[in-house]
């Protein structure tokens, strides 16, 4: 029996290895195709269609973008921008600024995710324990997935530096973490709740027959059962945390974050049009970094589980 | 008696040359006569489902020869000489019951009116005449299987291949379906190859029970049931029924009584 399991793992690892290279190769290919399309539009197709100055029309709709240096900087300009100084005569280069901002945002997103996970799982535990709480909160959890909670992001604009809760000063970054946590709370709560409720009645009856306390049952049955549901929930929560942090940075004006950098570089559009792309690249790295961390965590914690359940 | 299905010295190996090589079937010989009802029974891994799929040309044998109605299995499949039923009814959720039955007829290019008539005829046969326009998810498991059987017989094939079609049903429904199946097959004079896990089911339904063993899949023995063709309520309680069940059980344990392949 053990030998079978070991063989399976060996086989799985091999399969996973060769399979995980292929999407990477195609991902790079996809990126290359996009860049090629970008360049070919701005250099050839655009001018040929006459959209150098003005937006071109398709069937009377203004759909074709302007193909000049201000509107569509070349890929090489974008790459070059990384090495340029932050502002004229500044000592730090753009890549340093963007990297630092990305790191800040990453830390905020991680903090947001941590809070969201903590509160989400706690809420799920309470909801599993006390049925009336579940019945009361459940509809709101469900609705929350359909309404744009992100609309609340600017609510905290004027809170910075003005509120203190129990001696804790509300900084600008607090808004980002709170919004990220708020958004990531919901998928975690829903996923954890589903997971905690997933054991069959037979399994629960088994635990009852052992006179196990509610907490023992939770620890030994419900929690392990929930891991399969938490994996996809964590992915959703991670991207929600990133989303919340970025949007919060933009609306609140959190200068340390990469989201804010996008906005501020956007405003330098006329003088240095390619700059905003560096910040966007930073955001992409942020999202991918979070996703990779979650995948790593998933692979470590959930090694032994069968294929994950779709959320 | 003309032979509906001939299986001669058939071997099937999966993943040949790899570390996960599995010898599913080794030196299997079976002859099935026209109009016969033959069951394949054996423990998990004995290759009974594999054998069925070889006859259906859903798999190809590694060695050996199979003939269905005197043709190769491929030709029989292309000519639609058989109908097949699986453990899951496998009805298409987006089609009505009648349209599900019409599926093989559509694929063969029958025209609309003929298809409809045949579908209604089959519904009469499986005793669900008023469910023609119902949707599959409105039917019970047993009813869905009956529709699947109706679909398998829609083109009036001479051969019916069934892979544990009643496996997902409860005991009472199962016994009822077995009786229905016999009634239908008697009416249509179809040859049937039926894979099952259940000894009473095999004995109740079949003219002969092919007992198989695993590692690699082989035929242990073939038990002739020889029960009176007209089965009724009393059949399940007749002494002969129990005797035959015992015979099959013994064969499964490796103590074959009577004729059959001996291999150990």
């Amino acid at each position, binding site marked *: 029996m053990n030998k079978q399991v070991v063989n399976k793992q060996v086989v799985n690892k091999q399969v996973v290895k060769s399979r995980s290279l292929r999407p990477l190769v195609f991902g790079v290919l996809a990126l290359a195709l996009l860049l090629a399309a970008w360049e070919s539009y701005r250099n050839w197709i655009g001018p040929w269609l006459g959209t150098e100055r003005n937006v071109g029309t398709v069937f009377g709709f203004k759909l074709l973008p302007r193909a000049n240096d201000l509107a*569509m900087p070349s890929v090489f300009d974008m790459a070059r921008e990384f090495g340029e100084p932050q502002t004229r005569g500044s000592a730090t280069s753009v890549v340093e600024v963007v990297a630092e901002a990305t790191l800040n945002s990453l830390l905020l997103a991680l903090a947001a995710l941590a809070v969201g996970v903590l509160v989400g799982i706690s809420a799920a535990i309470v909801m599993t324990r006390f049925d009336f709480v579940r019945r009361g909160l459940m509809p709101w959890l469900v609705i929350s997935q359909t*309404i744009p909670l992100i609309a609340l992001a600017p609510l905290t604009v004027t*809170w910075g530096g003005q509120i203190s809760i129990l001696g804790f000063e509300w900084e600008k970054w607090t808004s980002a973490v709170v919004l990220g946590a708020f958004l990531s709370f919901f998928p975690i709560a829903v996923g954890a709740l589903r997971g905690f409720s997933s054991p069959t009645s037979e399994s629960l009856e088994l635990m009852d027959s052992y006179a196990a306390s509610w907490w023992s049952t939770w620890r030994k049955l419900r929690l392990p059962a929930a891991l399969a549901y938490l994996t996809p929930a964590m992915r959703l929560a991670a*991207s929600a945390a990133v989303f919340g942090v970025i*949007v919060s940075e933009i609306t609140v004006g959190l200068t340390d974050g990469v989201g804010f950098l996008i906005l501020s570089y956007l405003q330098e559009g006329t003088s240095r049009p390619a700059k905003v792309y560096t910040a966007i690249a930073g*955001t992409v790295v942020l999202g*991918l970094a979070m996703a990779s961390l979650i995948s790593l965590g998933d692979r470590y914690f959930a090694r032994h589980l069968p294929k994950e359940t779709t959320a | 008696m003309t032979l509906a299905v001939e299986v001669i010295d058939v071997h099937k190996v999966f993943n040949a040359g790899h570390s996960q090589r599995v010898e599913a079937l080794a030196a299997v010989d079976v002859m099935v006569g026209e109009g016969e009802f033959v069951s394949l029974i054996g423990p998990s891994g004995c290759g009974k489902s594999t054998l069925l799929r070889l006859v259906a040309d859903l798999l190809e044998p590694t060695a050996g020869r199979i003939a269905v109605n005197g043709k190769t299995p491929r030709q029989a499949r292309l000519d639609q000489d058989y109908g097949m039923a699986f453990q899951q009814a496998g009805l298409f959720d987006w089609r009505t019951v009648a349209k599900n039955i019409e599926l093989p007829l559509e694929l063969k290019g029958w025209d609309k009116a003929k298809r409809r008539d045949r579908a209604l005829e089959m519904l009469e046969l499986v005793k669900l005449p008023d469910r023609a326009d119902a949707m599959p998810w409105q039917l019970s498991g047993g009813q869905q299987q009956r529709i699947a059987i109706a679909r398998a017989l829609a083109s009036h094939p001479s051969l019916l291949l069934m892979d544990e079609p009643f496996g997902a049903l409860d005991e009472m429904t199962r016994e009822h379906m077995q009786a229905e199946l016999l009634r239908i097959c008697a009416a249509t004079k179809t040859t049937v190859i039926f894979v099952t896990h259940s000894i009473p089911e095999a004995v109740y339904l079949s003219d002969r029970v092919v007992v198989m063993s695993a590692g690699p899949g082989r035929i242990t023995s073939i038990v002739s049931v020889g029960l009176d063709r007209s089965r009724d309520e009393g059949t399940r309680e007749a002494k002969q029924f129990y005797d035959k069940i015992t015979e099959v059980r013994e064969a499964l344990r490796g103590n074959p009584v009577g004729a059959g392949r001996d291999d150990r």
Partner: protein
Amino acid sequence: MVFGVVFLGAWEVFVRWQHVRPFVLAPPSKVWAAGANNLEGIVDAMKVSGGNALLGLLFGTVLGCLVALFTAAVRWIGEIVNPLAIAVNAIPIVVLVAIFTRMYEADSETPRRIMTTLTAFFVVFINVSRGLRENSATHNELMQSYAATTRQKFLKLRLPNASSFLFTGIRVAAPLTVITAIVAEYFGGNRNGLGASISGFFSISKKDVGLAYVAGASVLGLLFFLLAAVLEYVSVPWQRRRVSK
């Protein structure tokens, strides 16, 4: 339900009792009043953002279906789009609206519409691709036993099977397009959508009006979701038995 009422009540009491200053939060009563006063403005903003979301949903769905169909025929198209779709799940692609803003005129709604289209496209593409790929083993064996041609199998099995996944995809994409439409407005451009109005009112400390617009946004999101859910319910009746995704 009860919880909602309790929450609103607690909110009202908290704000009044703590003498929470108006630039932090507003009590529900004030929000309701603000909503009533600004109803026309709110509805207009809903129309703008909603219009962008709807156009994106429509185009994105159509494109998603088309590309998924092409992928069924030509594998490598899917192999290129799939990594992008995975990346898009992790990255807040709404930031790309910053790029599009400069490619079009200053008062154009097109950048936002491109974003909502992209949002819907990836969701629908993934769902329809799955639908075309995931057929039960029994169904596959059945079609093989019928010696069905590739074309027959595609038309009679894969396509209808995929349609149920399509409507699920639309249901998932609908609220996402609303979110994208609203967030895209935070990046500058026209000021007459929900996102712009919300951030505008909140930054001048008119929390009650801002929250009223937030309520409008919630209504819009809920509306999109309900319409898509009803569409799914009607078109795919057999999924009523299955657990919803």
